[in-house]
């Protein structure tokens, strides 16, 4: 898919170090590093070399732009003012294509939200295409990978011969490559062929899971019975793990602290799997059964209805919900039970 696009070529993987150094002159570098709690986005120095072997971090990049708690209002003397988040310039280097798709989804969802956009406008995204399937990932089945299509400032594609294709996706990405003195040229036929070969090899590395497409079609078509949803609901512990790790989930509740004179109002991640999520002051709730709530969650992730507003379906195939769900009803768990094949 490089045909017609202008790209630069890093002769070897070490070429990313010049890119990191250039970014680090004006921004904090954030990269995926493995720590005691597993892989996560970490502030790093450009002096420490880049780690190409990156696991998809369970926490994801969501919390950088849509943090678990965001202060909306601050008041003293009973007069509220909008809170402005302190957002320093950052560069996320090594974003996986599934997360680029998720960030693009949230960019559209939060396009008119001043708090999200303030944080997001401070970030440069350097994506790296995945050359092989990760455990539990099914991005190819939901059109979110393994190669990035858009949502990046620069996408890097590692080739087997050690070269790296750098594709700008925004004017900022193009300026970054220009500043490094990299020649941007229309991709030659041989380079396009090498890119396509890498993409085909990555796509071929996913296990066969024919039930995925079937299950998505059933959910999108409203062809899953109430009985099936209620059977899945039995396995929901309402732990909210799935909504916390899902890179496109963003529902929040609002919490006041302080009193009428001085205090703050914040939005805090909420979860549609909680029984009280839609409960009204009267006690009435439109989704009283766990199966109702599991259905609502998966409908939101898999129905094409939502694509009109956010550019794609809500699920990006990252597989994080399967890792965290104690009831084995993450995405693949649900699809294996709903789909055939």
């Amino acid at each position: 898919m490089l045909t017609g696009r202008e790209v630069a070529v890093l002769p070897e993987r070490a070429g990313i170090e010049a890119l990191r150094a250039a970014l680090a002159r004006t921004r904090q570098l954030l990269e995926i590093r493995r720590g005691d709690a597993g892989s996560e986005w970490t502030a790093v120095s450009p002096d420490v070399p880049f780690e190409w072997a990156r696991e998809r971090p369970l926490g994801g990049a969501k919390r950088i732009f849509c943090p678990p708690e965001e202060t909306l209002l601050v008041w003293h003397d009973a007069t509220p003012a909008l809170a402005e988040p302190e957002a320093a310039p950052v560069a996320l280097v090594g974003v996986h294509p599934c997360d680029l798709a998720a960030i693009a989804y949230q960019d559209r969802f939060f396009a008119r939200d001043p708090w999200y956009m303030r944080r997001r406008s401070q970030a440069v995204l350097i994506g790296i295409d995945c050359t092989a399937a990760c455990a539990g990932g099914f991005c190819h089945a939901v059109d979110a990978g393994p190669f990035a299509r858009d949502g990046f400032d620069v996408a890097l594609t590692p080739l087997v011969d050690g070269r790296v294709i750098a594709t700008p996706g925004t004017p900022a990405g193009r300026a970054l490559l220009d500043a490094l003195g990299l020649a941007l040229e229309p991709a030659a036929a041989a380079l396009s062929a090498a890119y396509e070969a890498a993409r085909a090899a990555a796509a071929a590395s996913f296990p066969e899971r024919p039930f995925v497409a079937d299950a998505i079609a059933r959910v999108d078509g409203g062809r899953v019975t109430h009985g099936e949803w209620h059977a899945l609901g039995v396995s929901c512990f309402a732990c909210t793990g799935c909504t916390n790790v899902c890179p496109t989930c963003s529902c929040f509740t609002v919490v006041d602290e302080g009193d009428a004179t001085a205090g703050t109002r914040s939005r805090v991640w909420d979860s549609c799997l909680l029984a009280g999520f839609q409960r009204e002051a009267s006690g009435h709730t439109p989704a009283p059964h766990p199966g109702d709530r599991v259905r609502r969650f998966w409908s939101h992730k898999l129905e094409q209805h939502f694509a009109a507003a956010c550019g794609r379906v809500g699920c990006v195939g990252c597989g994080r919900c399967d890792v965290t769900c104690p009831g084995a009803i993450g995405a693949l768990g649900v699809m294996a039970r709903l789909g055939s094949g």
Partner: protein
Amino acid sequence: MRPLHHLLPQPARVERVEHESADTRTFVLRLVRLVSDLDRAAPGQFVMLSLLGTGEAPFTFSQLPATGAAPGTVVLTVRRMGAVTRALFALAPGATVGVRGPFGRGFPLDRMDEPCVYVAGGCGLTPLRAAIDLQLARRAPGTPVGVLYGARDPATRIHRAALDAWRRLPAVRIVECLQEAPADWSGARGLVTAHVAPLVEATGARRAALCGPAGMLAPAAMGLRRAGIAAEDIHVVLERHMKCGYGTCGHCYLNHRYVCTDGPVFSLAELDALPDAFDSPADTWHQACP
């Protein structure tokens, strides 16, 4: 970005509090600074009422500048139910609250010359009160208007002065209905659903508006449809928990729509495609409705 008055509560002072029933009052709030969008709000739209340190909750307008309320005021009829309403009821005139909005899609404002019935249960009369007042102000003389209002018992009736005023107007038919009626009650008895068809017939209504508790909506909507009103012309006000009012917090999801931005007023034809609108499973009530 969103307009500031959608994000930042605009200060308003409690100007007057009117007693409606034991747990319901009408609050007349005067904005400290004019918000022209609020003066132009339509029946069925709503605001987020903000009490700093306590929280926010959505409330619809019971009166509007378009229906005779003073410009620069926000008039809300509120039932004491949760934390925000408890704190609101404790405020004295002169106290300051915050208002964000207006939000949502209200009632259609055309076709004011066509006969219409308004069906309300409990505090569901509140959004309909503004819609009724607007039609009565704008209708061609003699256009029939019917109001069917159900309450639990005499003490829970609200908007009594408005009901009495409407009763005195020509071509207005009011049916009040109590679930627990005393022996000397001269109005109707039982559930509102039993009185829908006769009122539609008596007024020749071709349109309807409906608001009430969740359990009432589906049977009342079905009654209106059976009485011959087209689904596109039955307008239902839905209630949902809300935190933001502008389609971001996710609490009011109704299938793939938001009650806060796509509603809270929906036509029954729209709700036919939104199976979570009513509490009874959609397949059941669709089968029961010819």
